[in-house]
């Protein structure tokens, strides 16, 4: 509001305000000449950098090994593949000619510069709740990136873009964030970030047949790039339930005691969050943990039970062939590190504490065992080596059956089929 008021006091500002007001219209907004980077306020650009890190923007707007924000990242959806766009300020291939009003409209309403609908793979469902100030800062940030001339591959989607209008009419509501005055400021900050910019729900909430979130299952576990995104609500399968301190630490470092290391699509999220002020990760953690409505005593009890469990049950589990074979494979391939615990040199997390074993599908474990968990480029800590070439499909399946038997959950169904599906690259 302050900014709008400031603009009103300036001469010739009325058309700017008119532009901002026209956000909800669906027609094209005339392109502008690219703005000089120096015309943006440095503090605002820095603020935008913080916000872009929370939004994990770089991940979907950067091709593997590509230039930052120049687009080309393939996002596989049940409806085809959509490629992240070039959001560098290149005038021809990026968003160099996008006015701030056009940028704001894309973020809040899912329309491109010409007024065409954007696929909701671009998470405007969440960005619609962003504040004016944060949108100003994000605009300043993207418009001051190095312009890169790059056109991403054409989308390969089964649904034509005009049809998105129908989807939006049914599922998309432009909205602003509504805080809860009865909650502490930290919680509200977390709620705002999680429900807008961080868009946690995009992966951690299950989706229906038409790709819309199931609103009655908020953060009850979803899917991302062939990985399961675990539930964060009271159904959280985390063997040791999260508390605000451990979750905040996890979000910053990807590695905290008694929890598995961040892997898969969560890895870039953590890499980005490691760069934001601690208050942001603390706020996110406080809000997320509050969604798990279980009483803290219940959670403590669960944590105690998980930690008291034997490091790994001996192979004498009265089991079938798969469990026996899996136990032998575990002893030969995994136990050396995982039986020793993290405190020992080269030791790793005792697997009964690993969330990969307790989620409803073996998919994450398949990815982790096959590909390992490779640390980031500036990260020298030991890593989970890959076993892709070491284990055949049927051995991997046996190992998965055995690992699942270490938990109190029912066996996974069709483990072999899941392994085969993952081999074909179901991402």
């Amino acid at each position, binding site marked *: 509001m302050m900014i709008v008021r400031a603009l009103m006091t300036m001469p010739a500002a009325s058309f700017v305000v008119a532009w901002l007001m026209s956000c909800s219209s669906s027609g094209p907004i005339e392109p502008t000449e690219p703005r000089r980077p120096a015309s943006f306020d440095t503090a605002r650009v820095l603020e935008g950098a913080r916000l872009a890190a929370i939004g994990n923007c770089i991940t979907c707007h950067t091709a593997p090994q590509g230039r930052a924000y120049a687009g080309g990242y393939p996002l596989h959806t049940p409806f085809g593949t959509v490629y992240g766009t070039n959001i560098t300020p290149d005038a021809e291939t990026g968003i160099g000619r996008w006015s701030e009003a056009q940028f704001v409209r894309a973020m809040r309403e899912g329309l491109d510069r010409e007024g065409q609908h954007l696929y909701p793979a671009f998470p405007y469902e969440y960005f619609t709740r962003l504040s004016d100030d944060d949108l100003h800062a994000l605009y300043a940030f993207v418009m001051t990136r190095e312009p890169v001339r790059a056109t991403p591959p054409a989308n390969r989607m089964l649904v034509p873009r005009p049809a998105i209008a129908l989807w939006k009419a049914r599922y998309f509501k432009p909205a602003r964030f509504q805080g809860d005055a009865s909650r502490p400021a930290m919680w509200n900050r977390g709620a705002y970030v999680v429900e807008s910019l961080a868009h946690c729900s995009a992966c951690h909430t299950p989706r229906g047949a038409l790709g819309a979130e199931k609103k009655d299952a908020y953060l009850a576990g979803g899917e991302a790039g062939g990985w399961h995104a675990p539930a964060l609500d009271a159904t959280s399968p985390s063997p040791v339930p999260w508390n605000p301190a451990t979750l905040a630490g996890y979000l910053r470092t990807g590695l905290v005691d008694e929890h598995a290391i961040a892997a898969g699509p969560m890895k870039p999220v953590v890499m980005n969050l490691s760069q934001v002020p601690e208050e942001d990760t603390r706020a996110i953690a406080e809000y997320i943990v509050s969604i798990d409505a279980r009483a803290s005593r219940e959670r403590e009890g669960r944590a105690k039970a998980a930690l008291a469990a034997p490091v790994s049950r001996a192979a004498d589990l009265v089991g079938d062939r798969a469990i026996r074979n899996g136990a*032998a*494979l575990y002893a030969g391939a995994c136990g050396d590190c995982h039986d020793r615990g993290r405190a020992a040199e*080269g030791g790793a997390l005792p697997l009964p504490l690993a969330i990969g074993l307790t989620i409803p599908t073996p998919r994450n474990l398949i990815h982790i065992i096959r590909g390992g968990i490779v640390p980031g480029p500036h990260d020298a800590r*030991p890593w989970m*080596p*890959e076993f*892709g*070439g*070491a284990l055949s499909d049927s051995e991997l399946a046996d190992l998965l059956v055995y690992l699942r038997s270490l938990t109190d959950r029912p066996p996974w169904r069709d483990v072999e089929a899941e392994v085969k599906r993952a081999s074909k690259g179901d991402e």
Partner: protein
Amino acid sequence: MIELRVNGRVHRTEADPQTPLLYVLRDDLGLNGAKFGCGLGQCGACTVVVEGEAVYSCITPVSAIGSRNVRTVEGLGTGETPGPMQRAFIEAQAAQCGYCIPGMMMRAQALLERHPGATPEDIRRALQPNLCRCGTHMRILRAVERAAELMKTGSRS
């Protein structure tokens, strides 16, 4: 009794099924090319190729191999008649202490057999898990690029 196919030959071993492949190769079969470095799949000195894929033999139980063929550096050629990968490493004088080199060669071999046209960037990425404590990486990278050329032009030396 476990049957193990290494470099095209079938061997029998009395080893416990959980024994790391590396120990069987070195202690039972006398194939000392693959090295014990960390024993935790962190350094790559033990790398061998199983059915086309680079594998840490120190953390692979011998029982996991089944009927798949294992290739070790001994399978790439001999001292008298080195194969293209080995010739390239000799040409580039890529070894300092040499401990990591069999692992480097095997991971590179797996890469080039799958991607004969691997770029220097591909090679760098693929070899990332293998450590050289002497610091001969630049020569190792040159050697692998050279090996790609030699492998393409067949056995001409």
